[in-house]
């Protein structure tokens, strides 16, 4: 083994080809694929490869990232046709005998390279009133039983990366659908025993562009980097609307 690597314990490295979707509103050209050969380590993620390109090959490559550790939700992108966080996708887990394709998430307007305009996504999020609405002014924290907490535990994990919404074919069609992320964050409060505005949010989602546009494709569940059962959450909201209460 020692002959294979320069030193004991060294991480193996290899060369991969990345095809990155490039676009710049200002140069007036169509979006196009550009390929880069990058030397990466077995421990590297797609985000590390993008950093290498930006820092060593082409400084104009534009993408969002902040925490680099799957917390902030800023680097959702389409990697080999699937919505993933670049910072949570190990290159060695992809098929590295083939080039790796990296594109911006779909359904939102591309501003530059991998950066999209997130405003329509945030608008849908704001529209479901994603904050606690309670009429009392408690002197101490509001308590809740573990069972009551369990009802919405899964949907508290959302980091608003938009991987789900931008993987949804219904959202791709006209971008009017609220989208899975907004419904997930409504679910977070609808099923919270401390919140008093479940009816208001159910009413908002009982809209022409609300939960009924969901066709149970499961793309959102497959895309979510937090492992949230997104389709299940949407189904629970549908059931709650049919029941008329949370």
């Amino acid at each position, binding site marked *: 083994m020692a002959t294979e690597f320069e030193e004991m314990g060294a991480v193996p490295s290899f060369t991969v080809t990345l095809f990155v979707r490039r676009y710049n509103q200002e140069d007036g050209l169509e979006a196009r694929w550009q390929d880069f050969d990058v030397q990466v380590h077995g421990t590297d993620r797609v985000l590390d490869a993008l950093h290498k390109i930006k820092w060593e090959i082409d400084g104009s490559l534009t993408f969002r990232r902040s925490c680099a550790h799957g917390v902030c939700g800023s680097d959702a992108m389409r990697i080999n046709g699937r919505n993933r966080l670049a910072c949570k996708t190990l290159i060695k887990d992809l098929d590295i005998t083939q080039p790796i394709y990296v594109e911006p998430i779909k359904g939102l307007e591309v501003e530059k390279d991998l950066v999209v305009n997130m405003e329509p996504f945030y608008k849908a999020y704001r529209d479901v*009133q994603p904050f606690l609405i309670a009429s009392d002014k408690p002197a101490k924290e509001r308590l809740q039983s573990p069972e009551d907490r369990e009802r919405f535990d899964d949907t508290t994990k959302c980091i608003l990366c938009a991987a789900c919404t931008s993987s949804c074919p219904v959202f791709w069609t006209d971008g009017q659908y609220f989208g899975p992320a907004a419904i997930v964050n409504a679910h977070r409060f609808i099923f919270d025993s401390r919140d008093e505005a479940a009816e208001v949010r159910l009413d908002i989602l009982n809209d022409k562009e609300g939960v009924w546009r969901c066709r149970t494709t499961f793309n959102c569940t497959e895309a979510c980097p937090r492992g949230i059962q997104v389709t299940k959450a949407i189904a629970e909201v549908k059931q709650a609307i049919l029941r008329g209460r949370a």
Partner: protein
Amino acid sequence: MSIVIEPPRSSKPKRTNWEKYGWMYMRASGVLLVILIFGHLFTNLWLGEGIKAIDFAFVGGKWSDPFWQVWDLLMLWLALIHGTNGMRTIVNDYAERVAVRKTLTYVLWATCAALIVLGTLVIFTFDPCPANGTIENLPSFCPAK
């Protein structure tokens, strides 16, 4: 003091929400259609002599029986409304211009209505013993037989 936050959409006049009922209808009619369609295929293609039994007399016989009249009527109405509403969903997905969407939706429901009227008429006004029919083709209960 309580904090009152006005829901941003509350000013919108409340209309009946057809999308909810559409969603429920697709599921309810789907369940019934499974029974109706497979029951239909089973009696027509499998029972007795199977597919070879289908001729004018077979159809005439079925449409003289109130049981099959109701069965086929349900199948006709449920499937046409189900299919048209499904197509409306797809139109909503793909038609971006409002005028195109409204036109296509109108054409869909007009076609659906026409087919329902025609189909219903056929089921209830069908004459199993037409005077000009060839004797051997008529169902056994016809007086000419």
